[in-house]
């Protein structure tokens, strides 16, 4: 409880400093008054355009993540158990990691124009290497002695995958979820801003054209909030799934 009180106190202090700054700097600067931000917030929350944008962004985040995990984890598994394959794929992965996002964005705009596919694809490209390489190191981290024990006792392959592989990969999968979830929101917003036609990123772009800092902050606040909520939900869900493996 004491800890919660301290946290609350911290937040109140932060808001107070913000408000003082806003008054000192005056009017419509990048630090607008709390009242202005709050009225933008309440204005946004009920509005249909906002809700549509939230759903659109959320769908893209989920799609980008699913794409990343569904391709990154199995491929990482494969490259982890097969060094020759890993050597073959490594240059491609390095290129994907090294090319600046701006270049991908430009190419995506050439290919698909402004739309929903671009942000999802950009998210995939930025997160896929993390998912893949973390899985590879997870597989390499496997205890060879345990695998040998399973071989000796002729334990069926599927059971080895369920009991040994998944169990040792779980901490790595948690780490991947941790990193990619947080990143996905940020990447989606940026790419919506630059090559999207809907979503919170586009709303922030609109607020820019209106030169409305209060609206930018209100949208940012909501985006962060949504990010945190989804992170919690996904982790909760994942823990449920993991429990079935009794980790």
């Amino acid at each position, binding site marked *: 409880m004491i800890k919660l009180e301290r946290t609350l106190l911290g937040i109140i202090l932060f808001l107070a400093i913000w408000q003082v700054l806003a008054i000192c700097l005056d009017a419509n600067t990048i630090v607008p008054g709390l009242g202005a931000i709050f009225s933008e917030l309440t204005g946004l929350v009920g509005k249909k355009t906002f809700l549509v944008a939230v759903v659109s962004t959320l769908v893209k985040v989920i799609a980008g993540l699913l794409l990343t995990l569904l391709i990154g984890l199995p491929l990482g598994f494969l490259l982890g158990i097969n060094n020759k394959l890993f050597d073959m794929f490594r240059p491609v992965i390095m290129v994907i990691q090294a090319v600046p996002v701006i270049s991908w964005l430009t190419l995506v705009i050439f290919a698909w124009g402004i739309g929903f596919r671009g942000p999802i694809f950009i998210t995939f490209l930025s997160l896929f290497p993390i998912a893949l390489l973390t899985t590879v190191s997870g597989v390499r981290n496997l205890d060879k002695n345990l695998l040998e024990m399973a071989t000796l006792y002729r334990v069926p392959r599927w059971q080895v995958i369920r009991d*040994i592989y998944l169990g040792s990969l779980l901490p790595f999968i948690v780490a991947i979820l941790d990193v990619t979830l947080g990143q996905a929101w940020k990447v989606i917003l940026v790419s919506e801003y630059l090559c999207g036609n809907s979503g919170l990123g586009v709303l922030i772009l609109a607020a820019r054209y209106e030169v409305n800092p209060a609206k930018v902050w209100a949208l940012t606040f909501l985006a962060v909030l949504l990010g945190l909520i989804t992170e919690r939900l996904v982790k909760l869900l994942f823990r449920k799934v993991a429990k079935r493996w009794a980790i």
Partner: protein
Amino acid sequence: MGNLIVITNLAKSFDDKKVLDNINLSICKSERAALIGPSGSGKTTLLRIISGLETPSQGTVQIHTRNIGYVFQEPRLIPWRTVEQNLLFVNPDAELEDILAKLRLKDFKNHYPHQLSGGMKQRVNLARALITNPDLLILDEPFSSLDLPIKLEIINDVLLQWQERKFTMILVTHDLKEALLLADRIIILSSSPGRIIKDLTVDLNPVNRKISDPALLSIESDILHVLSSAY
């Protein structure tokens, strides 16, 4: 009784390094053989070849069973699985009650490996080998990290199980007393590359041996004599 294992002219090299040389060895059904040798003499390698985890460079190994229980030097338990789950992993149909009781693991079946002491982990390692109903039980220095009282306890457990099931046993150890308590045959390997330099029968009761038994002590001193002239 017939042979369970027949090894002929076996040699094993890793890259250019010869680890085992000219091994000829037959082991009968229900025999309890102890393998003694300095570290690096290829004892583990020989066990791994017998159990099919490694292939010989030369020679042949005939083994008339596929049911092998292997008590590894390290427990090799799955860390995120309970004792019970670790056992069922190698044999989902196993009847665990009996073996858990006999190895004094009953109260620990829902424990995770990190909650167990070293001796307890090795008992699970042993239980896992036994619930596959092995015709051949291989033990690779399973007791080397344990304190003497616990070591004697587990040795006794192994002997009771052998009395019940009469599996063939190969024990690797560097503890002569351990070998004399457990084995009816002691095979001594030379230092690298390992060759058999002595193969002798232990003429004592199969079970209920005592470390302080004069007969046992006299065999021990004979072997020590061989060892001191060999190394």
